[in-house]
């Protein structure tokens, strides 16, 4: 089969519609008689509800209904536990999931208390101010470290403490190897990740059509099928009565996964209660409180090495902020735990974490999903070791990489997908050498940096590596059908939030069926089109749905060849699929179009032969036994102004390995976007809370996202180490750009400010924080 599209940087099929404003987003759905919703939310991080008075709100003109927890009756249920804890021996897990409307206690600011349904959003927000919530404020659990102390108030009354989970995973024997190490380096390391801040906030429109007995829901979800099935069960409908459409979505990044958010659960129910379409669009302020975050971990970490810089083992004990509830289980801290090991051969590993309930917004995966935290710890420990041992930063990584003959590599611990953490494949050194070469690492250290320093300028360089477990199961599916027009329709169940699925999936199909990409129409995220699958998350779309689509395309190709072989009276082996038709090899005039074959296979008269199915259609599935392991190296040169503590990125290089590349342009877009979010996480974004659990910067004026002027040109290159676990040889790329950027910032800034002798053991940074660190360091030096 000729690959005319796979691997080519073709332009995206979906862009003309998006650029012309003709793509459907949830807020574009406007239906006759539609009602609008606003929520009354908690102003308190922790409080007892004494009473809720909604009478004034109910009387306001234009208000149709007001509901509190009491009004929900049996529909009031805690949300589902989306990911149960993995099978790890000795694990503790205290299950607590969010409720649709708070009943007795308020557990974080922004938790919904009442829902107002009105003729317009304006009226609904006016009425929300009419609601009087009488509370008894309680001391908030805002600090991660003191949350487990005996004095801390307990958030969930039926638990003894604020412990959400306790997990120990071990490999080898760290305690034993520690005694034999030449060098031990121990540090306390802090890493805080922020919010996804997608361009489009969440939104839901639900329309219960009583005459059709059909509920249609437009939802900004990454996982429409689990939402369909879950809501059907909650609402007492059959799954086929509920249609969930995830149309174009302005960014997912994790928090739009199948969360069964209170709003997601309530809006469809309200539509059924009132027999009218109902819309709720989250505003930016709500997004800060009501959409899940990712936040901080505090690691006490130690690395043991030989004097020539070979890692003997790592011990890492950390606290993880789970927020007020933990519906997504342990995915984030398990990712931190597993991804810490990175591309390195670490024979002995002791990792223990406690996940802690706090009076803050729920924590679930956001692009990187805890991997940043782990990578930061390991990369910082290696940098400290390199410095202490006088080894070059590139060299210490080279010395510790797993080598190609060590794959598949079993790390002997359990990953977030419940499978053992086994790297399927990898070849790390070429990416390191390539990145070092692209950025001119050694030349910079030898020439550029000293020359700049002489001229009074502070330039620094960083180079870090990481792996990313991607493309986890359980499975995805796809149905592909050739129309009588010759157009090809592809339907898959995952949602799309900007990943270019309409193009990369079309490329896979176009090559199998010998059609052009613009003749392949891809539908994602409509449960009426395809209703088996899980969703778009964990860098799995291309791997899992991509291979399902490939399998279905192979199925359709077989049917095409069978029908064409009969029609053209030629052996299948002699047939060529090209340009939307099948012809006999060497006899181009002996040809039949795919449209004609589609008609022949779906006759109006005559018979479909026994054993044959009508049409050129195939449905197939792909379920990987475990995830694939992508990897990469980032390098950066920065200039730091030591007066203003402003950091300017002079160059940014990414060498990435996600196996076979479907569309390099789309891949680069993924990496650029990830790097931008990584830069935000490292130097701009920070959720600032006070000790009462109040978020102090819930607007994009004070929560600083990097803008076009803060994100540099990003130079990329690719190494292709195909995955042996799937026919296309692909690995996920969605999160790679974001993961190692914090570690890179810390290393490069330390290098730029080498005369200040800083140790940067925290993210995020800021000019203010760098100023403090420099002054703290100066004070320490003076004392000693």
């Amino acid at each position, binding site marked *: 089969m000729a690959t005319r599209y796979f691997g080519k940087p073709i332009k995206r099929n979906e862009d003309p519609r998006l650029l012309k404003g003709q793509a459907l987003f949830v807020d574009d759905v406007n239906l006759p008689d539609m009602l609008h919703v606003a929520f009354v939310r908690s102003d308190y991080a922790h409080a007892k509800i004494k009473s809720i008075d909604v009478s004034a709100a109910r009387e306001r003109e234009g208000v149709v209904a007001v509901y509190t927890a009491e009004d929900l009756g049996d529909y009031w249920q805690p949300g589902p536990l989306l990911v149960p804890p993995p099978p790890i021996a000795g694990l503790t897990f205290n299950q607590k999931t969010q409720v649709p409307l708070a009943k007795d206690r308020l557990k974080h600011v922004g938790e919904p208390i009442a829902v107002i349904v009105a003729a317009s*959003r304006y009226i609904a927000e006016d009425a929300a101010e009419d609601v009087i919530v009488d509370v008894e404020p309680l001391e908030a659990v805002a600090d991660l470290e003191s949350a487990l102390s005996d004095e801390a108030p307990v958030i969930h009354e039926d638990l003894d403490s604020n412990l959400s989970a306790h997990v120990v995973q071990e490999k080898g024997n760290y305690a034993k190897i520690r005694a034999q190490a030449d060098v031990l380096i121990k540090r306390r390391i802090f890493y805080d990740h922020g919010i996804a801040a997608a361009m489009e906030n969440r939104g839901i429109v639900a329309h219960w059509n009583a005459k059709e007995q059909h509920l249609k829901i437009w939802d900004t979800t990454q996982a429409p099928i689990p939402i369909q099935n879950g809501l059907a069960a909650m609402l007492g409908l059959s799954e086929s009565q509920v249609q969930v459409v995830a149309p174009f979505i302005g960014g997912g990044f994790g928090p739009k996964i199948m969360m069964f958010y209170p709003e997601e659960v309530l809006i469809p129910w309200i539509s059924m209660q009132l027999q009218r379409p109902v819309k709720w669009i989250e505003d*930016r302020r709500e997004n800060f409180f009501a959409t899940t975050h990712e936040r901080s971990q505090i690691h006490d970490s130690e690395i043991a090495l030989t004097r020539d810089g070979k890692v003997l083992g790592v011990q890492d004990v950390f606290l993880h902020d789970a927020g007020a509830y933990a519906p997504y289980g342990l995915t984030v801290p398990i990712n931190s735990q597993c991804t810490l090991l990175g591309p390195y051969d670490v024979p002995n590993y002791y990792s223990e974490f406690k996940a802690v309930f706090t009076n803050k917004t729920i924590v679930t995966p956001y692009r990187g999903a805890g991997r940043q935290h782990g990578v930061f710890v390991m990369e910082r420990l290696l940098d400290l070791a390199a410095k202490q041992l006088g080894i070059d930063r590139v060299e210490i990584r080279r010395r510790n990489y797993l080598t190609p003959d060590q794959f598949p590599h079993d790390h002997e611990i359990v990953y977030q997908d419940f499978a053992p953490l086994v790297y399927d494949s990898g070849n790390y050194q070429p990416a390191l050498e390539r990145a070092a070469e692209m950025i001119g690492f050694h030349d910079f250290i030898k020439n550029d940096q000293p020359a700049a320093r002489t001229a009074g300028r502070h330039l620094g360089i960083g180079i870090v590596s990481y792996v990313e477990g991607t493309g986890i199961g359980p499975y995805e599916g796809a149905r592909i059908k050739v129309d009588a027009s010759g157009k090809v329709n592809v339907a898959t169940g995952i949602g799309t939030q900007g990943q270019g699925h309409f193009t990369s999936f079309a490329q896979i199909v176009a090559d199998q069926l010998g059609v052009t990409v613009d003749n392949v129409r891809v539908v994602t995220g409509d449960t009426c089109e395809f209703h088996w699958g899980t969703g778009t998350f964990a860098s799995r779309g291309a791997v899992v749905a991509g291979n399902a689509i490939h399998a279905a395309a192979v199925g359709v190709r077989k049917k095409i060849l069978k029908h064409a072989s009969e029609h053209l009276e030629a052996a299948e082996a002699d047939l060529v699929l090209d340009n939307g038709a099948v012809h006999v090899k060497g006899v181009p005039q002996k040809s039949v179009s795919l449209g004609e074959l589609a008609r022949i296979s779906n006759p109006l008269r005559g018979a479909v032969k026994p054993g044959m199915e009508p049409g050129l259609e195939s449905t197939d599935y792909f379920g990987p036994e475990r995830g694939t392991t992508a990897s990469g190296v980032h390098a950066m040169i920065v200039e730091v102004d030591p007066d*203003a503590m402003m950091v300017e990125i002079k160059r940014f290089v990414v060498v990435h390995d996600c196996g076979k590349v479907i569309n390099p342009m789309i891949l680069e877009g993924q990496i650029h976007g990830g790097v931008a979010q990584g830069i935000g996480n490292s130097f701009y974004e920070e959720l*600032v809370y006070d000790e009462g659990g109040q978020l102090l910067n819930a607007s994009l*004026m004070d929560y600083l996202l990097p803008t076009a002027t803060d994100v540099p040109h990003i130079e990329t290159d690719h190494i292709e180490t195909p995955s042996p676990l799937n026919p296309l040889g692909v690995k996920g790329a969605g999160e790679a750009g974001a993961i190692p950027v914090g570690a890179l910032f810390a290393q490069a800034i330390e290098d730029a400010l080498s005369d200040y002798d800083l140790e940067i053991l925290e993210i995020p940074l800021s000019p*203010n924080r760098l100023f403090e660190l420099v002054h703290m360091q100066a004070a320490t030096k003076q004392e000693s």
Partner: protein
Amino acid sequence: MKPAPFKYFAPSTVDEVLALLAEHGFDAKILAGGQSLIPTMNFRLAQPAVLIDINRIENLFFVREEAGELRVGAMTRHRTLERSSTVSRLAPLLTETMPNIAHPQIRNRGTIGGSIAHADPAAELPATMLALRARFKLASASEARWVEASDFFIDLFMTELQPEELLTEIAVPALPKRTGFAFKEIARRHGDYALVGVAVLLAVDEENICTDANLVFMSVGNGPVVGEQAQQALLGKKASAENMDLAAAAAASEDIDPPSDMHASSDFRRHLTKVLLKEALQTAFERAQKA
């Protein structure tokens, strides 16, 4: 994020506005460019009962020279000021200030009058107006008066402007000879409110003795802050690097008492003030020698 209900008026003359202000006073807010007011209303932090939109009042939009002064109508958009050759000729410090204000989209809507009347301590224009010794014309139904910038800014978001008054016009005296200027600020991202900013006028005689210094800081107090001690460190003295360092040190330690917030501690703001003032004085001095 929808505003609370309000009554909306869109008059077409200043007299109509003043009549509305006389009637509604405290309950009314003037809608100029709306770049601060509308977000505040959408957050429901401001819930004015009456909104008086002055975007249709044509004679509030002007930039002209009058008796050697720059005169600007209160509704003049930032973008107009930024691009005006009259402004750059008579008040180049104002031209230098403009690109630091937010982003082009915001400068297309935001107005000089709105920014001055709002008196955000982190905003650029109040500091620059103070440095330029501008005067503001405040009109009410009963009278019109001119107020010096130095008398106008009172406290956090508080000004001399009374509830029944409208700021209609700004007058900026042209720079005397051998007077240099500079505007510098440091912001987290381009277009953000500055962590610290400084607007400087500096005049020197032929011996480079400092004959005038007007130094104003932003984001370090409850309004634009005049660096009086820093000015004293320069007046009558040689405009040398040493004296500029002394002035910067005096500014940071004596003139300002900056607040700490999530973006910068008080100490960091003092440090940045020192760094910026040194740079700004150097630039202003170089310009003064040529002016």
